[in-house]
């Protein structure tokens, strides 16, 4: 009996907080029927926003994955001065509000910023352009792979790596043949979380993008812009697309995992 009560409470809580609101968004998206939904998500602005979101994720996620794996290896396997500092700095993006991240990037890369003025002379625009949005996304989604991989590395220990080295494998081969396969699910979860964060990022990207519809608008920015323009169908329809992207990522990994076992 107590078990059912617990289950009911858990489900009820999830329903009230997550399932019902998201479900209502989906329902509202189709308020004008399939045609309305389709028209809303195929406007040039919506399509460009979708494209831009995917491009940013395709740059930010691999970069954070590579960085995350090597950073985790450094944290777990190496002892170096500043070890503790690196370990805590990695968590900074989790603690910092994305808006602050955006403002910080403007200070550094903006037209009058530290490096921004020099970059501008070279004809490279960072803020209000794709590079700035990628930077902001990388910044906010930095810790996920590191945080997923560190405990896995700790758990597997370094015996397998030592065994590989006594069998004649160099560091590079040991990494590809032994370490990476052993941590692959940690990396995979990290990638899913990073992707979800990259797709959903709003605050930091909002500050650095300048929010020019059809040029520097990602899906999240587009949703908000539609909402502010009283185009509720447009806002909800794009929200559904955004949600589908995230669900798709999760699903892809679940399927991969099933195939594995």
């Amino acid at each position, binding site marked *: 009996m107590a078990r059912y009560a617990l289950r009911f409470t858990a489900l009820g809580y999830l329903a009230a907080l997550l399932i019902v609101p998201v479900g209502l968004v989906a329902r509202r998206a189709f308020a004008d029927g399939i045609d309305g939904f389709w028209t809303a998500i195929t406007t040039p602005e919506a399509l460009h926003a979708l494209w831009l979101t995917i491009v940013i994720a395709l740059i930010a996620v691999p970069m954070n994955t590579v960085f995350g794996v090597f950073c985790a290896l450094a944290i777990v396997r190496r002892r170096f001065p500043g070890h503790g500092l690196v370990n805590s700095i990695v968590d900074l993006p989790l603690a910092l509000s994305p808006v602050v991240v955006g403002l910080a990037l403007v200070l550094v890369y903006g037209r009058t910023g530290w490096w921004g003025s020099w970059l501008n002379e070279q004809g490279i625009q960072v803020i209000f352009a794709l590079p700035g949005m990628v930077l902001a996304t990388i910044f906010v989604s930095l810790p996920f792979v590191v945080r997923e991989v560190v405990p896995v590395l700790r758990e597997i220990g370094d*015996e*397998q790596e*030592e*065994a*590989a*080295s*006594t*069998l*004649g*494998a*160099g560091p590079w*081969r040991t990494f590809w*043949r*032994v370490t990476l*396969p*052993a941590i*692959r699910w940690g990396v995979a979860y990290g990638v899913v979380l990073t992707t979800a964060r990259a797709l959903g990022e709003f605050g930091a990207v909002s500050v650095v993008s300048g929010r020019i519809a059809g040029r520097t608008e990602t899906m999240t920015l587009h949703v908000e812009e539609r909402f502010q323009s009283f185009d509720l169908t447009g806002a909800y329809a794009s929200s559904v697309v955004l949600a589908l992207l995230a669900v798709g990522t999760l699903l892809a990994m679940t399927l991969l995992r099933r195939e594995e076992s």
Partner: protein
Amino acid sequence: MAIEARNVTKCFGDFTALDDVSVEVASGSLTALLGPSGSGKSTLLRVIAGLERPDRGEVYISGEEATGVSPQKRGVGFVFQHYAAFKHMTVWDNVAFGLAVRKRPKPEISQRVAELLDLVQLNGLAKRYPAQLSGGQRQRMALARALAVEPKVLLLDEPFGALDARVRKELRAWLRRLHDEVHVTTIFVTHDQEEAMELADQIVLMNAGRVEQIGGARDLYERPANEFVMTFVGPVSNFGDELVRPHDIEVSREPNGSGTQATVDRVVHLGFEVRADLTLDDGREVWVQMTRGEAETLDIREGARVYAVKARKGR
């Protein structure tokens, strides 16, 4: 000498794991590094393998200086206490790993792996993953993997430490047979003196980062260099002012020359062996070992009055 460690010192922070240790291992021999935990025996093995770099001292393998050589290039086989199996690879791929790294031709790899799996009696399990094997099977796989690359020396770090008593005994006998077959110079680490005495040609007894004595099982048991060796390699009893083996105390019902009179406090029957706790008349306590036959002849029982004397042989 197949392996030589010369004046090796290794510290971890304030802790001195190895303190000026020198050990020589003859080619083709089976040597045990024996000692309590924290004695430095595993560290010495890891220094020989190149997995730890000594602070001072040198390591020679087959007469060549190997101190700065990476484990990758040392040509040693290493077997870990917890197997260190590559969990995502099949038994076959685990064993083939070292050969694949060396880019040996495919047919040669297949042949060698098949031979090794035969040797360690795992031929039916080639397609299994380590998780589907028992502890003993995993350790045999690890051994085959280490032997695949034809190492100059085989190093085993508490190879049976994680196994239960029965499997441990089986694997022990099996390792001895394997060594007689393969003849690769082998060093293994253990904290179990029985294991060391049963398997090894030579025992290096270590304590607190130093070598206490090097010798065969009988040397250590019968001619221990000091009190630590005496206590570590076998049972001891305090008799009078000295340490003796409890089976080197003769017990009789009749006065026997210089024997001290004593009362039996307790008798424990352990099958072939019988143990008795005695209180000498001067108040000191001593325990003795005898065979079942001796105990029956003496009719030893609680409360009995006996005479105890140190046997002439021994220390």
